């Protein structure tokens, strides 16, 4: 990626603590248009927390977030969505008792001129977007609770791409999927990337994401160990960053690196 461009997102020195535990401690990561950045680390390394700060689920204690070079105020999920930041959570965060269309439009419902829900129009575009992601999907009338893991995952993904996101956060997007669906998600990521969308890909398993990412950022104990282009480091070196916090020569060390 070119360094001359303004980053789509620039997270700088963000910290957040929960009752004395510094879950994220002075973390800085950036993301350029059309780039996939894999955020790696063990369970509890702080990657999900950092991403929840960006998506508005948590409020940061300190640090700045810039979107397109301008400082962004993100206090809740609505703010984040207003900046074009969409998130696919690890837990999927679906409302179990309402149907697919209602989930896709939750919080942004289409209304009729009389101010009532336009369920038919919502179902229509739900059918369109689901057709693209999962052509065999037919259960539009069922609550999403009744759907299979893969189907639920496609609903969560559909919700994120339905509103022309510019920044997409995917937290363990393939955790609930079989090999075929995982490959589909990979294809989708490449397609979205070619449309100029920036993607944060979060995973604890490096093999899932190494071939999809342009850069990796590794976190450990709430701090960034380092960032690197995937062409400059090997998978084993990244593994060393994750496990030992050791920064290889091809990576740019962060505050969490051990020397």
């Amino acid at each position: 990626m070119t360094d001359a461009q303004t980053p789509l997102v620039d997270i700088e020195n963000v910290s957040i603590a929960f009752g004395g535990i510094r879950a994220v401690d002075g973390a800085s990561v950036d993301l350029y248009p059309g780039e996939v950045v894999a955020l790696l680390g063990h369970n509890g390394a702080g990657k999900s927390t950092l991403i929840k700060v960006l998506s508005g689920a948590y409020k940061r204690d300190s640090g700045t977030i810039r979107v397109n070079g301008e400082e962004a105020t993100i206090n809740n999920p609505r703010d984040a969505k207003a900046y074009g930041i969409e998130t696919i959570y690890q837990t999927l965060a679906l409302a179990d008792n309402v149907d697919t269309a209602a989930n896709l439009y939750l919080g942004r419902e289409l209304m009729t001129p009389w101010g009532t829900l336009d369920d038919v129009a919502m179902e229509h575009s739900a059918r369109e977007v689901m057709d693209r992601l999962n052509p065999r999907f037919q259960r539009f009338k069922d609550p999403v609770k009744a759907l299979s893991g893969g189907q639920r995952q496609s609903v969560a993904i559909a919700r994120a791409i339905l509103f022309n996101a510019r920044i997409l956060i995917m937290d363990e997007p393939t955790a609930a999927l079989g090999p075929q669906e995982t490959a589909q998600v990979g294809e989708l990521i490449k397609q979205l990337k070619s449309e100029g969308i920036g993607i944060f890909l979060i995973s604890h398993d490096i093999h899932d994401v190494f071939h999809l990412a342009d850069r990796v950022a590794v976190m450990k104990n709430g701090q960034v160990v380092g960032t690197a282009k995937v062409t400059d480091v090997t998978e084993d070196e990244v593994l060393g960053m994750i496990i030992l916090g050791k920064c290889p020569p091809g990576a740019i060390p962060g505050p969490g690196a051990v020397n």
Partner: protein
Amino acid sequence: MSDPAISLDRARASELGLVARFFKATELDTRLLGMIGALVIIWLAFQFLTGGLVNGQFLTPRNLWNLSVQTSSIAVMATGMVLIIVTRNIDLSVGSVLGFVGMVMGVTQAEILPKLIGFEQPFTWVIALGLGIVVGALIGGFQGFVIAFLGVPAFIVTLGGLLVWRGAAWWVTSGRTVAPMDSTFRLMGGGPEGSIGATWSWVVGIVACLAIVGMIVNGRRQRKRFNFPRRPVWAEAFMAAIACFLVLGAVSIANHYYWPIGIVRKYAEANNITIPDGGLFIPHGIAIPVLIAVATGIIMTFVTTRTRFGRYVFAMGGNPEAADLAGINTRWVTMKIFIIMGILCAIAGAISTARLNAATNAQGTLDELMTIAAAVIGGTSLAGGVGTIAGAMIGALLMQSLNSGMVMLGLETPLQNIVVGIVLVVAVWLDTIYRRRTA
């Protein structure tokens, strides 16, 4: 590429029997149907026990009319309780709020307004009812604020409310019963005066039938707009016919309950009518409290199914965290639900105060349990996210049927409570089995 999912569906469809295909085509809610079935069984049983199928006293126009009036107050509150339970909250204070608001409305029209503007003024009932609704909304809003923004569990807040508002109702008049009510206000309680008569009842019935047909046609047109699968025409026609038959049947029953002789005589004297030899039969028609309850049910159904607010209520009930992450202001939605509950308590309070023609400090005692039971029997899940307004209202009717049937049989009060308690538990148990099967 052959599609295994579709061929599987087709295989399943051909396996379905006639009955199953019927249910699939009409998209009937089998759960609601089961409840109506239970109601019919209870009604027939009481009819049988009170003198046989033909001579029984239960399924008479008079008893059914009374049943509808007795159900109204609980039915109104049950519609709000659905929203509260759907969002995994509970409201134990509704009976006490009803008592307090009823007392406020009673004192307003019987003691305060007469001093200011005189007795029986045309706007007395409007002022009393309006004040009651405002007080109800404030109480609900306050409790909702403590629950949503201060984070105190609804169970505790409303348990406190149960004591506070009952005490407050007592305090307003130091325990004195307030009577009589304004004569216009009293129409909300039913009775021969508080019913709309035969002609207007038919008008209401026919308008309701037209609305049903209109809604079905509109629904089809909407789905046609986007070429979605539609129900077969015969299924739609069948549903419309059944619904219209039920509406007109109910109107006919209400019109077959005539004014009592004594009231007819007084009415005839007052209006200089000579009573003919065969006797003068003046039909009650639909009672005003029943109309209020039905209107509340329709409005609340509209709110839950057609508005953003209703969508959020069910989304929050299914997964509160997901609703939050979707950008829904869940706290404000919770507070609004409790405001609605407070308003409904005020309406129910107006109905029961008007019916008693007095405000007493014991009014609405144990109503919270009847309301919760009605909502739960009506299929509202305490785990959250599931429930319908219509179900809760039928639940209220079912509870009231049991009560009034047992009174008619002369069952002793302790035995009545035992039966109601057992029915509640068994109903929820059966529902649990049903859900497990269909899940």
